[in-house]
């Protein structure tokens, strides 16, 4: 009735007939293990006698932790329901809502885990079992059969013998494969150079219909030269609709009012440069805030050393020398925005940036 499997390791115990009614439950379990090539070497209670004092103590500990888990869970529910939880400014009781949830749930789960682990560690019999690994590969016969079967499939299809099919499959399936890819690629792909205003090369400061674009604050108000104190800086945006939003993520600019001596130095350096000639207005200079390295706003302006630091990768730019990178991974200077003041006395950009704004890329000229 029962199939006796010859286990390689079952040597420790003799096969038994599990249908024998005289067998204890453990003997059946051990027979099952034997059939899975497991030898139960040691399986002994951790306590010398059943119901010993030590065992009762462990049982009590486990029970205690189950109860503690339940109590903490109840506390969690209580806090969850009744503790004030709506955010309020200041040091209020609602600030402790998350703390109370976390501590009660943590205690509950940890107690439950501790109870289960103690059960497993202390109460269950100590066990050493040995199981065979059976890492031997399949038999040579099986390998042969599997290999030959696959080769047989290829033979039967006879693609090798039928060159017409070979070509037809290729010509038939390749376009279908392309169809599978096409919607994904076609839907996602965007030409970065497609627009009339190529997006990588223009910012919001590009003059519109001959009108020069004003420099504005984040609330859209234009800026007069005396709005920025000596040694001050202000983040400016193009004065166009949504100019201060992420629609013009490449346009934020840092307008800096340099001190006299620094301004002289900066002007000399800028005017010596072919591209940056005449970008300053008075002692004011404006550089793109978008780091040429990875695009973070390079806006940590040190007014005494005249450095701009980018907080993401610590590139440092020297304002008095064309915002040339002097430290860190950035390899390209920050583009300067040419400044002018219009008839009403507000700052405008006399043209778009003369260099490409933002992180570097392959086809930047």
């Amino acid at each position: 009735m029962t199939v006796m499997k010859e286990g390689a390791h079952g040597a420790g115990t003799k096969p038994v007939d599990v249908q024998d009614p005289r067998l204890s439950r453990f003997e059946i379990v051990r027979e099952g293990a034997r059939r899975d090539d497991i030898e139960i070497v040691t399986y002994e209670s951790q306590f010398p006698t059943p119901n010993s004092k030590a065992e009762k103590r462990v049982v009590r500990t486990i029970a205690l932790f189950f109860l503690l888990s339940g109590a903490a869970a109840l506390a969690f529910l209580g806090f969850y329901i009744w503790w004030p939880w709506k955010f309020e400014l200041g040091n209020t009781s609602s600030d402790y809502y998350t703390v109370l949830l976390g501590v009660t749930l943590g205690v509950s789960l940890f107690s439950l885990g501790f109870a289960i682990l103690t059960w497993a560690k202390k109460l269950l019999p100590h066990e050493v079992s040995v199981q065979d690994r059976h890492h031997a590969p399949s038999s040579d016969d099986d390998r042969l059969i599997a290999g030959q079967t696959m080769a047989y499939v290829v033979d039967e299809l006879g693609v090798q013998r039928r060159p017409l099919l070979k070509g037809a499959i290729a010509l038939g399936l390749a376009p279908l494969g392309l169809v599978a890819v096409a919607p994904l690629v076609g839907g996602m792909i965007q030409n970065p150079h497609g627009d009339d205003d190529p997006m990588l090369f223009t910012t919001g400061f590009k003059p519109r219909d001959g009108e020069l674009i004003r420099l504005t604050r984040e609330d859209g108000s234009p800026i007069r030269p005396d709005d920025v104190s000596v040694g001050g800086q202000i983040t400016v945006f193009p004065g166009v609709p949504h100019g201060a939003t992420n629609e013009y993520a490449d346009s934020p600019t840092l307008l800096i009012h340099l001190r006299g001596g620094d301004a002289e130095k900066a002007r000399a350096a800028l005017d010596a440069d072919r591209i940056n000639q005449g970008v300053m207005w008075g002692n004011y200079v404006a550089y793109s805030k978008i780091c040429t390295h990875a695009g973070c706003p390079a806006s940590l302006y040190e007014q005494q050393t005249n450095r701009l630091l980018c907080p993401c990768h610590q590139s440092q730019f020297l304002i008095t020398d064309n915002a040339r990178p002097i430290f860190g991974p950035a390899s390209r200077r920050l583009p300067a925005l040419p400044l002018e003041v219009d008839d009403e006395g507000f700052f405008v950009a006399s043209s778009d940036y003369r260099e490409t704004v933002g992180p570097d890329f392959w086809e930047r000229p």
Partner: protein
Amino acid sequence: MSSDTPAGRRFRVFRRRRSAPSRLRRRVGAVVRMAAALALAGGVYTAFAPGALAKDTPQLSAAAAEGKALFDNSCISCHGANAQGVEGRGPSLIGVGSASVEFQVGTGRMPMARQEAQAEEKPPQFDKAQTKQLAQYVQELGGGPQLPSGELTVDLAEDPEALARGGELFRINCTSCHSFGGAGGALSSGKYAPSLHDATAEQIYAAMLSGPQNMPVFGDNQLTPDEKRKLITYVTLQLQQDKDPGGLFNLGRYGPVTEGLAIFLVGITILVFTSLWIAGKS
């Protein structure tokens, strides 16, 4: 005002402290400084003697006169007589205004312990009244930005939207150096933007007005007094006094660095000990 808030208490651990220079060094420094000041003062005096004599000494108020006495005692060696500045030692204070003095002296940055890249914050050497007197003196010497009288914060009951506007101004003007949570941050070559967790409203206002050290100036035309008050309200109420709702510890609001440390020092450590216990024999 801030140092007794939980945030303030938590941050005190990280406040910078510099050990005082050795006594010998202090003495030598003082001697050198004195000699230099004497020599310079002499030189300046001979060079400008007729002019200096001819020039009217400005009429000082009582407070300013007190301030002048303090100045001549403690500041003159670097900032020169009548705060004209000393080349290579300290800048002229003409036109910096009382706001600058209140910030620099009130936070203990001035007088400096020694010449270095950035003046350190330390326990102030002058009390509040003396600081005011010094400020008054510098103000009367050459004018410049002054702290306004009256409240430097906005009452939220009157203007509930001030907090949000202040936060917006803070994020666009301040976070790049002082960080979102106001914990401060590193600048180039050892300079840094200090933490704002202990800063008082007066100090923040004065710092914006005067642009101490490498901090840019935020004049009243750029950030109006009203906007400054909103910004200060955000810093003092939201960043300093508001208890973080996300847990007992805010990990300094330093962002992912301390969070990453915590997951290893707390999470992984507890769980490795747990697994040691699980696998250990009883």
